[in-house]
């Protein structure tokens, strides 16, 4: 329900920006232009979805794989190193990752996706490890003792039980990436960061507000949607 209302509002703002011209005018009476029009908002949304979709999708797959790997008996040697890396990476500013990625792969969406991928990996890895490590030892011993293969223990016991915690990681990661992806506009990746950057450069607070509201709405919609997904998962279990 909330999801439907938010999505409706979001689409309305994207496709008929004229509806809030009045609001913007009264907020910023001194400005000549209050609605960003250098590119259609629909296109910016698609670019943003592309940036976040690819990076978060890859982050989910890689993060899950890494988390699973370091909690296997044969990968456990890497657990301390990955844990350390994960908490260190979180303190690394995304702008710095972006700045480092540009010389490596040039301008455009590629460095942005790389930065978002690296950044989005961390919460997923951390939560996958936490979810699996927190499982009751007796449950795992029973699973092995009854004759499940390591793959069956993972698929039938560990992942279903750690699922909600892992999904929470995916959710955090995706929401962070939606916000961070705005930085991509500074290096030519497009997306909803464009009005914000344009506003910063052209000293037009209306553009900044417009971009920020759209990004915020987008993040809340995705967060709510993923939250619903998780709850359905739990209800099924």
């Amino acid at each position, binding site marked *: 329900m909330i999801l439907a209302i938010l999505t409706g509002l979001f689409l309305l703002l994207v496709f008929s920006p004229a509806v809030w011209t009045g609001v913007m005018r009264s907020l910023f009476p001194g400005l000549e232009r209050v609605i960003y029009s250098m590119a259609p908002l629909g296109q910016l949304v698609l670019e943003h979805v592309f940036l976040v979709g690819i990076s978060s999708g890859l982050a989910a797959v890689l993060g899950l794989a890494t988390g699973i790997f370091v909690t296997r008996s044969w990968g456990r040697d890497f657990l301390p190193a990955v844990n350390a890396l994960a908490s260190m990476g979180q303190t690394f500013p995304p702008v710095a990752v972006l700045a480092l990625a540009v010389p490596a792969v040039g301008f455009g969406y590629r460095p942005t996706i790389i930065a978002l991928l690296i950044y989005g990996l961390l919460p997923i890895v951390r939560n996958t490890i936490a979810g699996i490590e927190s499982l009751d030892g*007796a449950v795992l011993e029973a699973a092995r003792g009854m004759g*499940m293969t390591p793959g069956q223990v993972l698929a039938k016991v560990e992942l279903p*039980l750690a699922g909600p915690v892992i999904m929470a990681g995916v959710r955090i990661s995706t929401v962070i990436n939606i916000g961070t992806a705005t930085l991509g506009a500074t290096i030519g990746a497009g997306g909803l960061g464009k009005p914000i950057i344009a506003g910063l450069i052209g000293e037009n607070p209306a553009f900044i507000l417009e971009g920020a509201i759209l990004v915020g709405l987008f993040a809340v919609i995705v967060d709510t949607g993923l939250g619903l997904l998780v709850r359905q998962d739990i209800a099924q279990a």
Partner: protein
Amino acid sequence: MIRLDRVTKEYFGKAAVADLTLTVAEGEFAILIGPSGCGKSTTLRMINRLIEVTRGTIAIDGTNVEHYRPEELRRRIGYAIQNVGLFPHMTVAQNIAVVPKLLRWDESRRDRRTDELLDLFSLDPAEYRTKYPHQLSGGEAQRVGVARALAADPAILLMDEPFGALDPITRESLQIEFARIQRELKKTIVFVTHDIDEAIRLANRIVILKEGRLVQAGTPEAILTAPVDRFVMEFIGTDRALKRLSRLSAADFMVDAPSIGQEMSLSEAGSALADHRYLWVVDGLRRPVGWLDGDDLGSEAATAAEAMTRMDYRTEGIAADATLREALSRMIQGGIRGAPVVDEGGELLGEIRLSDILDA
């Protein structure tokens, strides 16, 4: 049959189990017992290869366990542990059906087996099938845990302190229930405990371990009557004679009980009493409601019911599956020399006499 031959398990050069040789025969209920850290769990877990031996061999029905893939081996051996380890995201029925599902039984066979096991453990299938583990009490969860271990009808059952985490009352009722189930199923069981009373109550054979080594193995009677050293003697405690009594059930000492109906006239009762010191008086459902002895005959009463000394079969009757130890303590507390043995409905089955027990 399980055979351990000079089995040793070392951790960092230190032996957790040392040179252990042991045979558990088909249908035998063997209990490994000893102080904490003496290697009981390690021994048990080497049988289903959750732990691999350092030296020595373990064979089941003559085949070395290393001959099987570990998973294949474990699916043929039931395994129940102290902390149960039910899968919290599965219902009771799904938990029980885990091994049958791994063995690819079809759904109707799995369902039938699940209900059969719930029945066996006195859990109403209609009510419990769809419950989740967090909705069960500790005793119910462990019943499901043991039912799950029995699901694919394995010939061998390994149990690591399965009743250890339960409160004493629940533990005792599960022990009694499990003893009944084992009489029916005759599995080959290796059971770990550190509770000597549990071992005496359940085992056909007790294996006492100390620091990874076998100290004494034998029937509970043999161990209670002839402990090999001070360690065993201290371990089994001072009340050895009393402990032996908990091996025997009231039914083993039951003899026929003379009884008369409560409507019988006192004169008839008098002639019936000629052959006995006392008579049990039973109601229409053959439940003992009192007893009659020579002193009661002198009364003015017309029927046995009016003259008898009243009793309540619900509190004073002894259940057939009670241990002799319980029966004895009840008789001593009540200051009586004989007690009626009754079935679940209260019907008189026979009696036990203090003199018979003391002769044992």
